[in-house]
């Protein structure tokens, strides 16, 4: 009975398509609900929370001198950290991509270490080295160098936690880079620096820019390590995240929510902005 066979096939096909459509709806709905509850709802809550007392409250909370100092300090630390990683991170990526040496895979794995270390532990490690009873404590006291509970400690802690970004952005770019272009430049009489500056660097441009932005964004948000090493001294070592922490503790919700919103928006704008620029450039 070929006719009824065909009919059965058609029914089965229709049923399968219907099931497919139902499954599609269900899965999309489930995932959208999950992402909505998990990510979107908290973000929206913070935006509403910050603006619930009006724009004026946000503006006046953010223009307090201690808040301005905290944000200034955070931006300054992030700038120094980015500058250091731009130089040394490029060097590390270069050495990993171009040199061959024993223990290379160990060094390669070491780059990701900061991802696996709790930020509190990072601050504590530095305390064990530079603290009063730490390894270098007596020496630093003798020379009157202040690292712990001072800005240099904040910079060191932020350097540690943001180390992987520059290297991880540059390494694949360097590895994919065609060495023959450099060889051609060298054959044409270019010096090592000329080759780097005119041939290699332009190819790395996007990698460097992306690494800089990710490092900067990570540095803005560092909290645990700077809390432990800096002690959150108001007006001295209190960064933007530490201000949010204190304001929450003192129930100054307008300040806490506004500053948290600014921090979040700043990081988000940086990362999305660079993404958009890169996509357009391609």
């Amino acid at each position, binding site marked *: 009975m070929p006719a009824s066979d065909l009919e059965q096939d058609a029914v089965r096909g229709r049923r399968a398509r219907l*099931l497919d459509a139902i499954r599609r709806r269900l*899965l*999309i709905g*489930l*995932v*959208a609900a*999950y*992402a909505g509850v*998990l*990510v979107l709802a*908290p*973000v929206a*809550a*913070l935006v509403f*929370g910050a603006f619930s007392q009006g724009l004026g409250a946000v503006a006046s909370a953010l223009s307090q001198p201690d808040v301005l100092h905290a944000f200034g300090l955070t931006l300054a630390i992030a700038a120094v950290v980015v500058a250091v990683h731009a130089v*040394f991170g490029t*060097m590390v990526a270069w*050495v990993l991509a171009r*040199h061959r*040496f024993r223990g*290379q*895979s160990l*060094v390669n794995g*070491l780059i990701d*270490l*900061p991802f*696996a270390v*709790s*930020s*509190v*532990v990072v601050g*504590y*490690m530095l305390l*064990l*080295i530079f603290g009063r009873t730490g390894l270098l404590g007596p020496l630093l006291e003798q020379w009157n160098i202040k690292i712990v509970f001072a800005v240099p400690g904040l910079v*060191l802690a932020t350097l*540690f936690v943001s*180390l992987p970004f520059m290297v991880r952005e540059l390494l694949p770019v360097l*590895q*994919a*880079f065609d*060495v023959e272009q450099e*060889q051609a430049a*060298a054959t044409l009489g270019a010096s*090592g*620096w000329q080759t*780097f500056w005119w041939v290699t660097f332009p190819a790395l441009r996007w990698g460097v820019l992306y690494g800089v932005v990710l490092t900067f964004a990570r540095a803005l*948000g*560092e*909290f645990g390590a700077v809390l432990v090493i800096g002690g959150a001294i108001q007006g001295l070592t209190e960064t933007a*995240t530490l201000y*949010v*922490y204190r304001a929450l503790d003192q129930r100054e919700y307008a300040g*806490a*929510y506004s500053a*948290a919103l600014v*921090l979040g928006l700043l*990081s*988000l704008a940086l990362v*999305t902005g660079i993404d958009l620029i890169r996509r357009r450039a391609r």
Partner: protein
Amino acid sequence: MTAVPRPTRAGSGAPPPDPIHWGRGALRGAALTYLLVLLVIPLLVILQDGLQGGLSGLWQAVSGRVPLAALWLTLWTAAVMAVISAVMGTLTAYVLVRYNFSGKALLNGLVDLPLSIPTLVTGVMLVVLYGPQAALGGWLLNVFGWHIIFAPPGIILALLFVTYPFVVRAVQPVLADLDREPEEAAATLGAGGWTTFRRIILPALLLPVTSGTLLSFARAIGEFGAIVIVAGNIPLRSQTAAVYVLSQVESENRQGASAMSIVMLAISLSVVLLVYRLQSRGQRGPAE
């Protein structure tokens, strides 16, 4: 020699000629010194400090009631997060790869969002939403009696938020590259959608799901910013390992702080190493 230029890869092949001949050693020296000073020395110092009394001293320092409770809370909340993340992360990746729908770009953006938001800000967000004074938090507390903030559910929510991209971004590329023919064959042979998913898609995704899940677990062990806001610092109730380390640093109990730090490092690093091993085996597998 072939005429085709080949990209150099770490760990294989002869060293390519270096355009900067001079200063090659100096460059390597500077790069390695940087890593040594910034990463290796702090790590060695804390290991030396925490292991002064040997492993028994370490155990003694973390086996008190409070540190054990902190460690247990950290481990079980991370485990619950990992299970939820594995399922929902895989489903998110599946929906993003296989379906087209309005709002897909938004969903894609939401997945990456946690990476660019400071974890402290994540904590503040959750408190604003679920805190006892908040509309939703108060409602959940009054109607269901659910404590979210200063309790384990808040910790799990914070961890889920922070690690949302891990599984999704591990699974997505593998799923996108997956050959569709076996699935179509299975469907032609009468296999239902669930059977096809379980027998054909899931085995191919096992490695990325496992590594994404393990990495989010490792990340959760050390999470601090989001948790200290959401969970507070109540010993025996909502104090996690990272928050315990902070409280020991503040009360100048060096032994306790060092010991707990080493335990956390050991857990995170061994999980990360396991992932590296799984991935390198997975990469070698199909080539052989």
